[in-house]
């Protein structure tokens, strides 16, 4: 069952080939066997999942079903789930049980899907390797010495290893696309505002966006049909009609204009990644697409701008974790200041502290204009780069990350870690959608092709990605661990 895509599983459930309970049990067994090694889940909600599966089977028997009824999924532990711990990968929230569901969780539940549990992640979504988790690093299913990427590393690893057919992730600076690339799965970061952020623990509010991570673009389209749309509880979600993302999956690509940003093929790009990406572009050319080079001249400012804006917002967003109302509280505080200092010193990990410090500094009196205001100007220029490019071409293509997955512990220096996100981060600053699709393997580690579109072009991205997956089978390949534990 685990080698099937979500779309195929939905068909099997519909035809009665197996029940949701059988399917859910299958995934729970796989988690049981493999996750001791991978560490992709923080919380597994087996009993609840089986109950939901039985309810789904009953609903199906009664004829009351949607396309995804009975499909098990995994949720990044950043989405608040009523009655189930939501840790955000942090000691700070190790004891936190939200009294409500995130909108994404509500919508998935209303669509009849089943939650297998909550996946591991970099603490508060800050990281590109999933090594910053209070619950320990996640291992890449393709190579246990390698990282799965981050911050949605648990979701990516779980899907790649066949522990869940799909998972929800979030992407603030590449956190869906880079782990999807490292783990050989398909991950879509929608346009900012396309999916509600309500109940998603905020890292950098103006950049955070939830999206699906699955085996195929088609799977992602089905999930987007469920999660996209305006939410009155999130003022930044956009009131704009939601198309049926599956409808245009098979639109032909002849005449598609592809742009290759020259800045995405420069120094630092591993040759094997470049080869895979250029091979993928050739596949598109064979389908009748045209290719030209374009320029995104402000690309090299993206990382510095991001590391001003995101930590600034984070320093404020994470102020609520103060030990007063919920979360970690230090032992026997002597006064309020002591309570704050020790609770936060004990509850937050190193990378989170680093970003809070950076953000606090850049917002400080005397530095605000030089950092924050300047970074916002850069952000507008970066956005304009993309808008200009989309005047010329329909989509942009390039690598999702400069290299395939690197080894656990390989990047000790924060700046070298930050450079991982060089091709993904500008997309968040511009607010446009991007998708990463498996496009090769190098040394047994997957390589991701990133496809970018203009605002609200998700349907087009899914169409372009799906057509590639009709012509290639990189997305169907599974790591050995998925088969071993079958």
């Amino acid at each position, binding site marked *: 069952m685990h080698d099937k895509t979500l779309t195929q599983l939905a068909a099997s459930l519909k035809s009665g080939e197996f029940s949701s309970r059988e399917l859910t049990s299958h995934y729970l067994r796989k988690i049981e066997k493999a996750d001791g090694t991978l560490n992709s889940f923080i919380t597994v909600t087996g009993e609840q999942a089986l109950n939901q599966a039985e309810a789904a089977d009953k609903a199906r028997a009664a004829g009351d079903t949607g396309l995804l009824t009975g499909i098990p999924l995994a949720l990044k532990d950043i*989405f*608040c789930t009523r009655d189930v711990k*939501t840790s*955000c990968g942090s000691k700070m*929230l190790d004891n*936190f049980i*939200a*009294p*409500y569901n*995130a909108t994404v969780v509500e919508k998935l539940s209303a669509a009849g899907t089943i939650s297998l549990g909550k996946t591991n992640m970099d603490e508060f979504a800050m990281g590109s390797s999933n090594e910053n988790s209070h619950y320990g690093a996640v291992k890449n299913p393709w190579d246990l010495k390698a990282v799965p990427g981050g911050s949605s590393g648990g979701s990516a690893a779980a899907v790649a290893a066949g522990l869940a057919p799909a998972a929800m992730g979030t992407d603030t600076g590449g956190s869906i696309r880079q782990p999807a690339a490292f783990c050989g799965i398909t991950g879509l970061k929608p346009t900012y505002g396309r999916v509600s*952020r*309500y*109940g*998603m*623990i*905020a890292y*950098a*509010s*103006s950049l955070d966006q939830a999206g699906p991570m699955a085996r195929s673009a088609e799977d992602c389209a089905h999930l987007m049909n469920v999660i996209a749309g305006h939410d*009155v*509880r*999130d*003022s*930044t979600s956009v009131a704009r009609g939601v198309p049926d993302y599956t409808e245009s999956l098979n639109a032909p690509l002849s005449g598609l204009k592809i742009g290759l940003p020259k800045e995405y093929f420069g120094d630092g790009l591993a040759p094997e990644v470049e080869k895979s990406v250029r091979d993928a572009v050739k596949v598109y050319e064979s389908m009748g697409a045209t290719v030209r080079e374009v320029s995104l001249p402000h690309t090299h400012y993206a990382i510095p701008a991001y590391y001003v804006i995101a930590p*600034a*917002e984070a*320093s*404020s967003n*994470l*102020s*609520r*974790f*103060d030990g*007063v*109302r*919920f979360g970690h509280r230090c032992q026997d505080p002597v006064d*309020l200041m002591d309570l*704050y200092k020790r609770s936060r010193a004990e509850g937050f990990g190193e990378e989170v502290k680093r970003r809070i410090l950076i953000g*606090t500094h850049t*917002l*400080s*009196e005397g530095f*605000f204009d030089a950092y*924050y205001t300047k970074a916002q100007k850069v952000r507008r220029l970066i956005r304009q780069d993309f808008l200009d490019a989309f005047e010329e071409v329909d989509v942009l293509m390039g690598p999702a990350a400069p290299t395939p997955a690197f080894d656990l512990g390989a990047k000790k220096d924060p700046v070298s870690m930050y450079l991982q996100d060089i091709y993904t981060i500008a997309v968040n600053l511009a607010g446009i959608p991007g998708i990463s699709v498996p496009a090769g393997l190098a040394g047994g580690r997957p390589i991701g092709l990133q496809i970018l579109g203009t605002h609200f072009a998700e349907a087009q991205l899914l169409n372009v990605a799906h057509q590639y997956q009709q012509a290639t089978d990189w997305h169907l390949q599974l790591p050995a661990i998925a088969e071993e534990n079958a």
Partner: protein
Amino acid sequence: MQWETVIGLEVHVQLATRSKIFSGASTAFGAEPNTQACAVDLGLPGTLPVLNEQAVAMAVQFGLAVHSDIAEVSVFDRKNYFYADLPKGYQTSQMYHPIVGPGEVEITLEDGTSKRIRIHHAHLEEDAGKSLHEDFMGMTGIDLNRAGTPLLEIVSEPDMRNAKEAAAYLKAIHSIVTYLGISDGNMAEGSMRCDVNVSVRPKGQEAFGTRAEIKNVNSFRFVERAIAFEVERQIELIEDGGTVVQETRLFDPERDETRSMRTKEEANDYRYFPCPDLLPVVLDEAYLDHLRSQLPELPADKRERFQSELGLSAYDASVLSASREMAEFFEEVHHVCGDAKQAANWVQGELSGALNRENLSITNSPISARQLGELLSRVLDDTINGKAAKQVFQALWNGQGENADEIIETKGLKQVTDTGAIEAMIDQAIAESPAQVAQYRDAEPDKRGKMIGYFVGQVMKASRGTANPQQVNGVLKAKLDALL
């Protein structure tokens, strides 16, 4: 040296929305602690603010009432600081682009003169919760019911020159917001709070002195007292060779003094930046026009109309227009009895006196405006005299009758204007007071006027107050003089 005081006020007005500024929780006062704080107010992870449109409308109404420029685009910023009753670790406010731009308010002083006070801006923000330091065995209790309550912070220019002007300004703001119905203006419940910026400078000097900010002054009286203390403190300090330091001070009404809370060096760096969870508020002309068309008559317009149309004095017009409730009561009394002067006298005199004695507001008056108006009609048409009117007033106050006519009837207070009956009572009074008649006769002519009062009293007593006093006076004088 002659000193001049310079005062600016920051008035925090709690807006009378049903729910909070960024959540659906109720804003009602006095509920059990933490029963009116939802996930958003508690700052739970993942929750997001959604702006209350009613709060925006109220801020705009205020802006229109003080002739401000309303910002086409205003932006919410986060003011970051840690405090136990500030759940998110930041207060959502408007630092750089407030909704209400420069405007002005006219204040009326006790001598009847008026002055314009400029408003720098007014911005929307959320209130924090409350820290309770008693009853928790040395710990602090946090009540977040108030967290997220919408506030409009109205910042004046430093245009006031003494405590009276500051109090008059605060009253003017109070009267505007209650007229608009955008706040209940209840200072005791904290619906209106005020920070006072005070500095002094040698008279004639243009540059401002260093100011102190006095926090949380929550009554008209305290504003005057806090300023009086602070001005004296600053002058004394300078005259003794010291310098005023920029600092935040707290007014202690128990001791009638201000105390240093924190100096500028200790001040927080609030690290303001635009709140990424909220979109900019964009208002178009049509929206402003709609709200403008809904504005009620405001205190300044009412005051003007009371003078020009009703012929009231500047003072009366100003007192009667000070609150919407007072003005509406007066206008109803006037409408019923038809005589503005009489209505003004009674509302400010008998009624206000009685309300003050029993510590009641005009909205809780036991006598309705209609009842008072009907009573005054009976005075105006000479059914009763002024003295009887006071009795009827008291009876209505005590609930001894539905209306003036009923009380006049049951108490037999109808004024006696029948000349024959009055003459009979006068004759009787004269006959029963030979000694007083003799005194009257022997008195110097210019003293007799005063002595006539005794006989009037006797006649009024005999009529149980119902005789028409003017009539009694006239006939008495004629009859006594005839005895000379």
